[in-house]
């Protein structure tokens, strides 16, 4: 039966391609990945496409202090150079623009939306994604009813959407195309002083490319004359750093 079915299937596939074009029927594995935005951070190596996917939702997740916000701020700083509109949707009200300075953002105003309610956060995110904002940093969850509009809006305009949450709800996790999980491995101490942390970044979900694996990162805090010095280094390579 199998032997008979295959030529018929091949014949049907051929007929579809002849009638509707060679791209009408494509194997899932052959589908082109979404365009990537190379962020210049070690995360690019984990996504499998050389950057964060445009038009999709990416999540940085991890409980407690594990470096996800540092990475997110680094992405945001890079986005201010790359996109005309990099927007922060600060649902929890905890975004501090000062934390962005070590990563040398582009000079100029940064748009921060502080929605009064979770629904408003969802509305803001989906409206801005549909309008074509280049980069949206979501500081917190988006309610489930807004995930569909957010996904479709981002997909239409190619917006890079990055969410930072401790533990995403099931719906939020499902809506994301890429989830990077962070787990703090250890604190780094030097002469009795806390100077940073070591974290394990792992690609826990990847719908844009085969999963690449994990990477250990170090996020370091150096007290210095000019303030705080923050540095994150991918193990084995100097991936990115920032100094105030």
């Amino acid at each position, binding site marked *: 039966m199998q032997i008979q079915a295959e030529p018929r299937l091949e014949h049907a596939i051929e007929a579809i391609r002849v009638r509707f074009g060679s791209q009408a029927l494509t194997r899932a594995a052959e589908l082109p990945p979404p365009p990537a935005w190379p962020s210049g951070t070690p995360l690019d190596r984990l996504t499998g496409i050389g950057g964060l996917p445009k038009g999709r939702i990416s999540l940085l997740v991890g409980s407690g202090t594990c470096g996800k916000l540092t990475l997110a701020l680094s992405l945001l700083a890079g986005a201010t150079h790359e996109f005309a509109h990099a927007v922060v949707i600060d649902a929890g009200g905890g975004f501090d623009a000062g934390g962005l300075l070590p990563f040398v953002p582009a000079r100029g105003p940064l748009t921060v939306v502080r929605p009064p309610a979770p629904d408003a956060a969802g509305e803001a995110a989906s409206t801005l994604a549909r309008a074509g*904002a280049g980069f949206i940093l979501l500081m917190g969850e988006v309610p489930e009813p807004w995930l569909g509009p957010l996904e479709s809006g981002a997909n239409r305009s190619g917006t890079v959407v990055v969410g930072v949450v401790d533990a995403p709800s099931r719906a939020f996790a499902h809506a994301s195309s890429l989830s990077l999980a962070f787990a703090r491995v250890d604190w780094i101490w030097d002469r009795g002083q806390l100077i940073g942390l070591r974290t394990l970044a792992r690609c826990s979900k990847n719908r844009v490319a085969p999963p690449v694996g994990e990477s250990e990162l170090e996020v370091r805090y150096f007290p210095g004359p000019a303030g705080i010095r923050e540095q994150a280094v991918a193990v084995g390579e100097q991936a990115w750093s920032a100094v105030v």
Partner: protein
Amino acid sequence: MVCCGLTSHLELARRPDLYGSPVVVGRWDDHVIAASAEAVAAGVAPGMPLRQAEHLCPLATFLMPDLEASVRLQELIAAALYDLAPVVEVRVDGVAWLDLEGVTSIPLAIREARRRLRAATACEPRLGLASGPFAARLAAARARPGRLLRIDDARSFLAPLSSRELDFDAEQMERLDLLGLRTLGDVAAIGPRELESQLGREGRRAVMLARGLEPDRLEPWRPPMFTSSHRQFDPPVEDREALLFVARALCGDLAEELGLRGAGAKRLRVRLRLEDADEETRDSLVRHPLSSAAELFGLVGSWIKEWQPAAPIAEMWIELPVLEASGRRQLRLWAGGDGTSEEVVAALERLQERYGEGVVTQVRVG
């Protein structure tokens, strides 16, 4: 450049299940309004008495015309094409024109127009691209289904075609024949004044058309200015969650319609008819047109959440009394770049409108 998409007559497109078989549309005591290609092959022609058509093609399916349904389909097609070109005209006889002047990506617009025409009429349109609507329509008529025929030199393309392609009545056609003007090339060769003296103003127009000078302008389609959606509750409801659920569905319906029409709502009104026949209303003008379900429900939902109706609700109406020809949707056609920046700024302003100025702040960094 004008692109013409030629589909079947919209009276025929109402019944895609009959594609491939002979179909004749017309009233019994009147003339044929439309005939499918199979019926035309049997000798039926639009305009002939229906009895004659029945005699020529007795196996055809004979349909009564439904002008209302055809006009609805015409509106649907016009709305679907509206954001592809600044000027769109659709006729009931299955001709859709798009004036692509100023459109940044003409191939993309044509490809999308073809896709949308196919979706609306369930048949592959023939496409013509020329300097004006007349040449574009004749080019489309000569293209294969799903293909585009591009005409760069309209006059030489038109020259060998029959002068019957001009939309003249029988008497005018007879006079053209008597003058020996059997092709458009013959018509183009004669002076406009000479033919005007024979056929009046139509004669001058015919010469201009035959020369590819395109004297006719498209009549731009405009989106309608009002729409609404409503739901009755039997028995009347008091449950706020039920109201929100229904409101979300109504907003979805309206957004779909707005999307089809390429319109945005400048004003939003919610009316609740109460069990005791009283009515309560909320009404708001919005600075930027709302077009998506999320935007509509954002406002409607916020009203319903704090609404305290005096009695159970028997009917809910969501009305969009002022619709705007969707500049926002067409913005990308003309704005510098892709118009994104303007849309993001508009989106931020809309959020401020809804939640107050303080919801959006500009933080200076760097």
